[in-house]
């Protein structure tokens, strides 16, 4: 139990002033602008938007700056900010099939309509520190190529789903959509809630869980069916208009994992799917999310759920890094009264133990 303490206002204020000074650092070094963070630390902004569950590049950049690059603190700031705004409603589901694709790869099918597009990727770099970045200088301009086909790139899973070897994902739009920001999570949770929690969930936690499934803790034989990055339009139907209005575009990363499935009483042997979707370019997160989404479908697919990644309550209750850090870090706050009570109790237990011992010695 936590009992409130009083006092310390002056010290706390001074601590925050010291923090502000240290955040700024050496005044001889130019201060970062939000635009610089947005443009040059783009993946930090992407992660903060995804796990902060709020798409706004400028706010996420501000949070990164205020948190001095501590991304979980930045995510916390963004989550706190969103509670100050009213919600106008929910968008139409974004159509990732209509994405303006900047990157799209499939590890399962070499020849896909639209081709394999590497886009801006760390893949195939040598992971050698590039000292030219330590000096200032403009990079070589990106190459351009007039496209052979401007046709939309269909999702790999849609093309290959047609012969029935892939599990179909069908819309059930009569069902309401669960929202963990409105209602407390209850178990068992449906897939809509699971996907929301995973989308907001900590990248590191999901990465470790996804990795654990690959190492045999609930192995589900995954392949990266498709990963795509690009911009999708977000449409919203305002009540007063009654038709969908485009609000703008958001950058998203989507991952479709395909997994071997032996089949069940109701489903023939086929490939099943795990799904990952994030704001911005968060590829590792999207892949991890897809692995864990598939692992959490064990119950629904009639598989034995024995591994940690398949344990819905364990995964969903611990995926949120704001909740996790809140509970872990609250241990730093004064627990004097609490601890005093424990101290009294431990002393009493020691006294009792000593008396016990001396009685035993006396009896011998």
């Amino acid at each position: 139990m936590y009992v409130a303490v009083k006092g310390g206002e002056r010290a706390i204020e001074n601590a925050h002033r010291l923090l502000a000074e240290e955040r700024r650092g050496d005044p001889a070094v130019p201060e970062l602008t939000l635009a610089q963070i947005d443009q040059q630390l783009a993946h930090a902004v992407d992660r903060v938007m995804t796990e902060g569950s709020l798409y706004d590049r400028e706010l996420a950049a501000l949070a990164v700056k205020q948190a001095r690059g501590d991304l979980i603190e930045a995510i916390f700031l963004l989550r706190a900010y969103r509670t100050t705004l009213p919600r106008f409603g929910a968008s139409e589901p974004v159509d990732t099939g209509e994405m303006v694709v900047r990157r799209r790869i499939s590890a399962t099918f070499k020849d896909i309509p639209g081709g394999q597009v590497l886009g801006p990727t760390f893949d195939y770099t040598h992971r050698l520190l590039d000292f030219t970045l330590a000096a200032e200088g403009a990079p070589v301009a990106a190459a351009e190529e007039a496209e052979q086909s401007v046709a939309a790139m269909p999702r790999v899973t849609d093309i290959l789903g047609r012969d029935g070897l892939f599990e179909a994902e069908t819309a059930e739009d009569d069902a309401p959509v669960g929202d963990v920001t409105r209602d407390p999570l209850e178990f068992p949770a449906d897939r809509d809630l699971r996907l929301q929690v995973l989308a907001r969930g900590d990248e590191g936690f999901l990465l470790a869980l996804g990795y654990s499934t690959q190492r045999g803790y609930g192995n589900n034989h995954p392949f990266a069916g498709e990963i795509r990055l690009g911009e999708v339009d977000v449409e919203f139907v305002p009540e007063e208009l009654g038709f969908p209005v485009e609000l703008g575009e958001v950058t998203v990363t989507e991952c479709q994992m395909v997994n071997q499935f032996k089949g069940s009483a109701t489903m023939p042997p086929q490939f099943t799917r795990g799904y990952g979707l994030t704001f911005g370019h968060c590829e590792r997160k999207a892949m991890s999310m897809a692995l864990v989404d598939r692992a959490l479908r064990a119950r629904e697919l009639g598989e034995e759920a024995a591994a940690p990644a398949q344990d819905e309550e364990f995964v969903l209750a611990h995926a949120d890094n704001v909740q996790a850090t809140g509970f872990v870090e609250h241990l730093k706050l004064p627990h004097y009264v609490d601890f005093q009570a424990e101290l009294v109790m431990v002393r009493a237990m020691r006294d009792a133990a000593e008396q016990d011992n001396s009685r035993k010695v006396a009896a011998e």
Partner: protein
Amino acid sequence: MNMTTHPQSNEPAKSTATDTRRAWMAVLAKAPTDALVRAWGAMSGKPAYRHLRRPETGLVMVRGRAGGTGQRFNLGEMTVSRCAVALENGIVGHGYVAGRDHRKAELAAIFDALLQDSDRRAEVEALVTRPLSEAQAARKAERRRKAAATRVEFLTMVRDR
């Protein structure tokens, strides 16, 4: 919504008018604020307007679908600003734009109203939406060309064959 130009068939006319309006609203929503401010500044005969809804910022929950085509789920929210204005002739314009920029939402609403006015549409299209739409298409095409330059042909190496 200029229904008078399609007196014959109400229903298709309505949907066409709505599609046209959706298209210009999308262009306005994706425009940079300074481009809208410049266009407004360059406009002669600025109309008088009053607010039906003052500019305000809120959130829209962005939804996705499992597997891209399946069950809907909540991905996360985005900031959105909105505004509604009425011109003196009674035409009402709405602005719904991503972000927290009140001025942008307001200008989007004003231009939306003007574009519904058949007397002013051509002028506003020429000054605002057409150049914006062309710039947006050009940016999209550039992104596509840069992505296309990274298209790769992987060869499968098969042994003993």
